[in-house]
């Protein structure tokens, strides 16, 4: 956070106290709309965390939210205990963390490599065209992406299915067969996001002072050595920032990816269920508000600790790269 970037502006005009009060009031009316939104849609739900410790029941005599809340019994940690008895919990946790680790590692290696490659291309128009094409999937929704994939692997008419049929091979029933899905999921995520991250790294690389490379070249550094000792160190801040942001979100999955891309098929849950989809499933199928809130609470507390931890860690290594 660049919170301290601006120094307090000196009060050069010597505004009167009244004028200062008025200015503060006017600025407060400016923050008001978004601040009220944040209060109602972000902070009020934080209060809703009490639902995790309640056996939420609709009060038939007065079914408004607050009366339901007051009349629901406190049940302590009961809503949390079910998690340890449910074997989907371990599966969802494993999938979330492993997929995120794969996304983080590949999400650094591939875009950094692409950005370095693009920077080495001697034409200027061609890399622009690559960049434009690669960036395109970032702007599509997962619903749309799920249909892009469906066109290739639909068990009835998909392109790959048809090719298999023509070649006389056994047709893979993609939406019922868990085997290929870890790869499909990782591929889909990379396909959608690599263009964006490449662009971020590339803009940092093009911002590097070219005299750094020239000096290295004069000292006899090969292109590979220049990459290792000039380019990569210059990308360090960017890598660190994206790394913290992603480690902080390691318990949060991209709901759209895991919900839409496997077409929400029950047969694939073993490899596609993640914490976020599991919460939604508990909530919609059992309508158990207490239990689904409890899972969400654990997830959010874990993420919070991760973000603070990752930030502190980066701060220790490199003060300037930390987020806050």
């Amino acid at each position, binding site marked *: 956070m660049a919170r301290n970037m601006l120094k307090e502006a000196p009060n050069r005009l010597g505004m009167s106290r009244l004028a200062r009060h008025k200015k503060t009031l006017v600025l407060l009316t400016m923050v008001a709309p978004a601040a009220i*939104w944040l209060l109602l849609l972000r902070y009020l739900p934080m209060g809703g965390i009490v639902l995790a410790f309640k056996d939420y029941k609709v009060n038939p005599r007065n079914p408004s939210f607050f009366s339901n809340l007051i009349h629901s019994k406190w049940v302590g940690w009961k809503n949390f205990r079910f998690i340890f008895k449910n074997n989907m919990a371990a599966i969802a946790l494993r999938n979330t963390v492993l997929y995120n680790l794969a996304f983080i590692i590949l999400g650094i290696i591939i875009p950094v490599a692409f950005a370095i490659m693009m920077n080495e291309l001697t034409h200027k128009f061609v890399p622009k065209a690559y960049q434009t094409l690669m960036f395109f999937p970032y702007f599509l929704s997962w619903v*749309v992406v799920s249909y892009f994939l469906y066109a290739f692997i639909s068990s009835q008419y998909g*392109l790959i299915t048809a090719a298999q049929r023509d070649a006389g091979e056994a047709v893979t029933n993609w939406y019922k067969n868990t085997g290929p899905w870890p790869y499909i999921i990782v591929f889909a995520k990379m396909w959608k996001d690599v263009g964006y991250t490449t662009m*971020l790294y590339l803009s940092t690389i093009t911002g590097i002072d070219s005299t750094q490379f020239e000096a290295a070249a004069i000292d006899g550094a090969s292109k590979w050595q220049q990459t290792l000792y000039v380019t990569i160190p210059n990308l360090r801040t960017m890598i660190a920032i994206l790394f913290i942001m992603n480690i902080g979100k390691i318990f949060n999955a991209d709901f759209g990816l895991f919900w*839409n891309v496997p077409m929400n098929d029950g047969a694939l849950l073993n490899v596609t269920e993640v914490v976020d989809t599991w919460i939604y499933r508990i909530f919609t199928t059992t309508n158990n508000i207490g239990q689904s809130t409890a899972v969400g609470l654990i997830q959010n507390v874990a993420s919070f600790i991760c973000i603070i931890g990752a930030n502190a860690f980066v701060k220790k290594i490199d003060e300037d790269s930390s987020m806050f």
Partner: protein
Amino acid sequence: MSRKHKAFRGNSVSVGTEAVFHVILCVFAICCIIPFIFVIIISLSSEESIRNIGYSFVPQTWTLENYRYAFQKMPQIWRSFFNSVYITVLGTVISTFMCALYSYALYRPDFKYRRFFTFFSFFTMIFSGGLVPTFVISRQILGLGENYAALIVPLLVSPFNIIVMRTFFMSSVPLELVEAARIDGAGEYATLFRIVAPIAKPGIATIALLNALAYWNDWFQSLLFIHSAKQLQPLQALLMEIQKNAEYLNKMAGQLGAAAIMEASKMPSQSLRMVLVVMIVLPIACAYPFFQRYIVSGLTVGSVKG
């Protein structure tokens, strides 16, 4: 590489290496656009062709029949298209406005509560009440559900956008200008809209585009909040509904009346989904060359200084 060649190319990689780079990048770049082209082709394939040879880059017969069918026989598609446009336009205007106001106050170093409100929005990025409490409170206390508000309000504020916008103000608008405006007696609103906003136009355009994309691409709010009021569904939600329920297309045609049920048997159900996909992606693809530039500058600012 010969020495002569090396000298000619200066401090660059060898021709061979560059060729390899080109191949790798080119293959990936084509991968990124091919599925969209494929879906367009499927939407132009006749139903018999799909039944015979499946989805193919070279269908047996090309046809516009799928589009004609979608536009003539399926009023819900028009309705959903209208919903998508309506939600996107209204949502983008309101959210960009709210973001500009909030960011402007945070940009002012002499705003007394600047630190508090910076933290107030930032904290929601690192901690939240979670999906279920947010849903329950939105639904039961704020009355979001089965109405347009449910599709617009939940996406109005994004702390990330606030950071991007504030950074944009800080890097492009010198504080002296704000002070000069104050000396001239301009109020805060006049300063923002007449002086700061015109200078920070690229930043505001970026935020507006991000918001527009968020609304156009949103399906999650419909999944949460729209259950019975199907007439409010945007295109994305309609497409998901079809995915969830293969019979949904038939039902949609069924709404037209008894005569249409006969018609339904002729329905090009396989290619119709792809018509919907094209209807969603085509507007983005057409606007893409124009907005890409803004997004690049905006996101770079936001992520570096965030």
